[in-house]
């Protein structure tokens, strides 16, 4: 696995696959190499970063740890920034944003939200204060929707500032020198299916460039052939009459471990088929959110390019 040296890393994946842990792990790993990193959450109703670093989530980047800053790009603040960037008169900006028609227009017009939020990430991506931007995207289906918006705006409108911005977003975040999309996945048939499906959709859109997949919680419980035979025997013996109850429970829990290892191994090889070398299995790590992210950051240590 080579994560390269990109300005912007986007991270997506099915819900619950550990996207935020991966983002924080990447940030910690880069910060350890002396890089200045900005971690962004995207219009998160309940931001996850505070459970790693404490404090409150803010729209303006805030220091989370040495060389790591974080922010949540919420829609209304992003809209404020966007309107200010196209309307120079302050008094008028407030008037526009407070107008009820405008508010309803913006919350209900599909795509406006996505474009305004992406626009803010785009702005940050030029800011010299940071070497890397790590974007904790929403779950895969909605991440796809997010990137589809600038593509649609690009086709739909012949001119105007929105179309210009959409075009700028597409060319920046579609550039493989600049941006890379990483998938967080979990072992198991359905999460893997979803990862593969989303990858296909993203590739067909051409935005953002796919950088690889990180398989979280990959168990390290390989059963040798002898182990398998012993376990099979034990399950059989434990089912017989007179066997201790606990023996049956213990063999069942070992059976679950074995099944999960099988599923994980199978899942990893399916991911390898699609992502090739750009596949990384991450261990199951104990502890708090931040301890997990710290553990991941050590695994990521050797994967960045020069």
């Amino acid at each position, binding site marked *: 696995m080579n994560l390269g040296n990109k300005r912007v890393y986007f991270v997506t994946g099915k819900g619950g696959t550990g996207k935020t842990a991966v983002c924080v792990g990447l940030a910690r790993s880069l910060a350890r190499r002396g890089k200045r990193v900005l971690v962004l959450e995207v219009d998160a109703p309940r931001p996850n970063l505070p459970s790693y670093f404490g404090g409150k989530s803010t729209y303006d980047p805030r220091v989370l740890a040495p060389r790591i800053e974080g922010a949540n790009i919420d829609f209304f603040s992003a809209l404020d920034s966007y309107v200010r960037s196209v309307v120079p008169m302050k008094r008028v900006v407030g008037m526009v944003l407070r107008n009820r028609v405008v508010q309803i*227009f913006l919350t*209900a017009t599909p795509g406006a939200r996505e474009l305004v939020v992406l626009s803010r990430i785009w702005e940050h991506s030029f800011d010299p204060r940071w070497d890397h931007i790590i974007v904790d995207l929403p779950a895969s289906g909605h991440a796809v929707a997010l990137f589809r918006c600038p593509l649609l705006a690009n086709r739909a409108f012949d001119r105007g500032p929105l179309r210009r911005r959409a075009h700028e977003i597409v060319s920046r975040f579609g550039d493989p020198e600049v941006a890379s999309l990483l998938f967080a996945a979990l072992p198991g048939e359905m999460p893997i299916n979803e990862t593969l499906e989303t990858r296909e959709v993203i590739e067909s859109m051409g935005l953002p460039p796919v950088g690889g997949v990180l398989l979280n919680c990959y168990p390290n419980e390989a059963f040798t052939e002898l182990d398998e035979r*012993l376990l099979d025997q034990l399950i059989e013996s434990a089912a017989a009459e007179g066997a201790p109850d606990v023996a049956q429970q213990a063999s069942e829990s070992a059976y679950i471990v074995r099944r999960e290892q099988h599923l994980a191994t199978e899942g990893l090889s399916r991911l390898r088929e699609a992502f090739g070398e750009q596949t990384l299995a991450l261990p199951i790590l104990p502890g708090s959110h931040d301890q997990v992210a710290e553990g991941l950051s050590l695994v990521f240590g050797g994967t960045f390019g020069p």
Partner: protein
Amino acid sequence: MRYPGITRGQNELRCVVEDQSLVVCVGSGGVGKTTTAAAIGIQAAIDGRRVIVVTIDPARRLANSLGLEALGNDERQIPLEKFTQAGLEPKGTLHAMMLDTQATFDELIQRVSPDDATRDRVLGNRVYRHISDTLSASHDYMASEKLYDLHHSGRYDLVVLDTPPMKNAIDFLEASGRLSRFLDDKIVSWFLKPHTGGRRRGLGLLQAPGAIVYRLLGNIFGNEFLDEIADFFLAFSDLIGGFRERADVVSRLLRDHKTTRFVIVCTPKSTSMEEARYFHSQLMERRMPGDLFIVNRVGRFGATTRGDDGRFLAQETRAWMREELSQLASPKKVRSFVDRLESHFDRSVAMAQDDARSIEGLKSFGGSDCIVCEVPRLPDDIYDFKGLLTIDEHLFGSVDST
């Protein structure tokens, strides 16, 4: 309790699939929501109801679970063989579909259009095409529309709705209201006022606040975008009544305790539990019936007691195991295998005890009105019909049907 001999949660779920006509599964991602929706649908069909399970999740997980090749916007029946192969004779029927929002939107336009000309004008509008295309990704509006459609079709006694993960499920609860506001007559007429027509920059027009806002919107989003939106509204204005009526019905339906039950799906992991609580409070705030939880992947063997030697896998059990395995490998290898088994088991028990604590926490949080159903951590990934039936055994228990 309507059914003796099963848990309170199982009894409640049985009542839900018998009495309600809409079950909405909500919860964060990766907690088994789609699987739960499918399992509920199967049980209701077995019990004699005409059921449809609808997923609005962009992933095609439901098709996988039900053994269908794929799901589309059309309602597909789960073949009877699926049940008979498992030795079951359903008294009702089971359908499933995945919401295709583009197709649903087009159908809706057809239905609410007063005449063919209006329909063609809307369907042919460039902004409509793009807006509906974008909507395909967000799903909320059309999910509530489909809900209206299925609920009023008379084809089904029960609609089981799977929702997209967390954040968007809340969007879904509000989608019908948002649509109503979006289609507010006043807003639409604002766009249809003369100041929206020609973009004349006369002094008189500039002084009207509406005109200023309109011009600024033009600056922000481009005049062309705004003009197209205005055209879109013009084309849409004839449909507003029908739209709003339907949105209002859905909004009322979701709040009607007689027809609707929300099922909050989660796992015992702390993050998932937090989200389940959050969801519970969101539903309660909206006066929606959200007091039923299903906790998936609950660790087993939490009740295991320690042996005389203080270990879960007591000395005599380990000895028994070693004896049983002695024929298969050297004593050293057998011993190391049994040691490994013990460490797995210790972890399972510890995890199960954590799970039990977090479920207790959920129960005390929700108060006595809350009902919590548990599904244990199962050895296999659930993606086939048999697996779904296993879940049903846990969700509904077995009652004597004679």
